[in-house]
């Protein structure tokens, strides 16, 4: 390998890429456990679809748009790396292979749209969702990632590299971006049938806890890995991530106990995620004590913020706004207060004698990404809704979207493994018969059938 290459840093970033990848399944379980059993699979599938679509687009043009040489004004990358063409096996980004950096960043591009899915639980057409992912990463995520994450000695992205907005691992590019897009999406799709009326309690909190556990675990790769090297900054980012998350878990629990009289496990899981979100932009610039403060604040504020949807009547089903938009904003702004100037970079926050300057930059970053994402996301959602249609039929939603969109049931715990619902395997034969009218027809009038199912 060439000079400047570090096997240690490469080992670190490659493993971190794997850790970030596992966050998306983790998110799928976190979300999937929170919905009713009849729409669990759709929730899981929305995240897995992002793994599929975004990875392919990344290789085709995503990497180039995000991290190709700046095409001008720090707004977007050029097309030099279409198909990841021309990237040598041993070309380096800093001390690691470009391919390692590209793989690591790909995982960020995957989880961001997946985060949005929580806002439209139980009701989005699967094909429309796939279309949305493809368009959204193209016109929203890839450019914003370029603004925030592409550094090129002052010729990089306009927010991070050119205007000093500090976002160590994606408070703006990932969380505000996804949170605000979630708001736009749930406004376009409208409320679930029975919102605020029907019971919609989580069908499996252990699944939610599993998701939060995997997210917490993978997030070390997300935050510490963003140092792109196994060094003191990475170590500081890692411990900050841990303690902020812990503090947020406590913050949420305390708020809940005072407000609702109980320490819930869903609250613990939600608080942890809120803390992870809030420390994401800050983990590379604050001290462990600062991280604790950020976590406590984020936990309590997000716990309060999730009730906004009831006050204003938008059905952000799994609180993408309350946790990711709010949490991401809290973390991004608090950098302006808690940045010590001695960790990952030198800018000082208000509490460390840096005055209000950094806070102003942070506010700009939050505002710009939030506004851009909301407008574009709303337009995309509207466009899709008025063409292919974004929402399933009401009776499909009542019966459970899994049946109509995925032709599956999430669980079957009955003694015989077929549930009280009996099943005949005839079609399996049809599958192999050259002419499969049974199959065909059955598939044909499937939607017709669906409209009756379980309603």
């Amino acid at each position, binding site marked *: 390998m060439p000079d400047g290459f570090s096997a240690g840093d490469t080992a670190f970033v490659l493993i971190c890429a794997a850790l970030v990848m596992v966050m998306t399944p983790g998110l799928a379980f976190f979300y999937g456990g929170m919905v009713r059993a009849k729409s669990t699979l759709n929730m899981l599938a929305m995240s897995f679809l992002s793994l599929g679509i975004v990875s392919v687009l990344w290789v085709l043009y995503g990497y180039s748009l995000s991290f190709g040489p700046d095409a001008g004004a720090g707004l977007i990358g050029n097309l030099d790396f279409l198909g990841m063409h021309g990237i040598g096996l041993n070309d380096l980004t800093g001390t690691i292979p470009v391919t390692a950096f590209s793989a690591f960043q790909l995982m960020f591009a995957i989880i961001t749209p997946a985060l949005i899915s929580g806002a439209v639980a139980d009701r989005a057409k699967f094909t429309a969702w796939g279309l949305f992912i493809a368009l959204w990463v193209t016109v929203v995520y890839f450019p914003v990632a370029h603004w925030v994450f592409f550094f090129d000695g002052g010729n990089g992205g306009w927010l991070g590299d050119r205007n000093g907005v500090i976002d160590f691992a994606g408070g703006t590019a990932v969380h505000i971006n996804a949170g605000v897009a979630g708001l736009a999406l749930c406004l376009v799709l409208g409320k679930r049938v029975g919102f605020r009326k029907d019971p919609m309690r989580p069908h499996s909190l252990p699944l939610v806890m599993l998701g939060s556990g995997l997210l917490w675990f993978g997030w070390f790769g997300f935050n510490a890995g963003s140092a792109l090297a196994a060094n003191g900054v990475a170590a500081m980012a890692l411990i900050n991530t841990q303690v902020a998350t812990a503090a947020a878990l406590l913050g949420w629990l305390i708020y809940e106990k005072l407000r609702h009289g109980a320490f819930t496990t869903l609250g613990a899981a939600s608080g942890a995620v809120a803390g992870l979100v809030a420390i994401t932009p800050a983990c590379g610039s604050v001290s462990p004590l600062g991280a604790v403060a950020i976590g406590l604040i984020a936990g309590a504020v997000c716990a309060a913020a999730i009730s906004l949807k009831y006050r204003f009547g938008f059905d952000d089903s799994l609180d993408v706004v309350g946790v990711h938009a709010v949490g991401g904003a809290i973390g991004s702004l608090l950098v302006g207060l808690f940045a010590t100037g001695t960790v990952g970079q030198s800018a000082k926050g208000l509490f460390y004698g840096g005055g209000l300057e950094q806070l102003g930059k942070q506010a700009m970053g939050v505002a710009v990404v939030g506004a851009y994402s909301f407008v574009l996301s709303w337009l995309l959602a509207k466009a899709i809704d008025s063409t292919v249609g974004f929402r399933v039929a009401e009776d499909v939603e*009542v019966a459970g979207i899994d049946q109509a969109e995925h032709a599956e049931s999430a669980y079957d715990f009955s003694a015989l493994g077929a549930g009280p*619902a009996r099943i*005949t*395997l*005839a079609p399996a034969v049809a599958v192999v018969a050259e002419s499969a009218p049974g199959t065909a027809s*059955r598939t044909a009038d499937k939607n017709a059938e669906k409209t*009756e199912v*379980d309603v």
Partner: protein
Amino acid sequence: MKLITAVIKPHRLDDVKAALQAFGVHGLTVTEASGYGRQRGHTEVYRGAEYTVDLVPKVRIEVLVEDDDADQLIDVLVKAARTGKIGDGKVWSVPVETAVRVRTGERGPDAL
């Protein structure tokens, strides 16, 4: 006394319960059930094997009532459970000889 049994669509349970309360019923017993009938099931696919699920989820309600209230209660229940779509279900009544409240041992009407 009579035992009224109703097999209805699950999402009607709330309204039925409310209607019965309004009617003055103090209690009822619910069981999850599945029904086979005119209402068609749906198709599921697992690795190329297509299954037709022909039993659909239902909720089974049992209510003990005094003889005189039986007919009226049936009407109330039927009205509350109706959607007008195939699969709304059935309601039937059978005669009950004795009913006892376990807690007190009270019998007959007092048991309700």
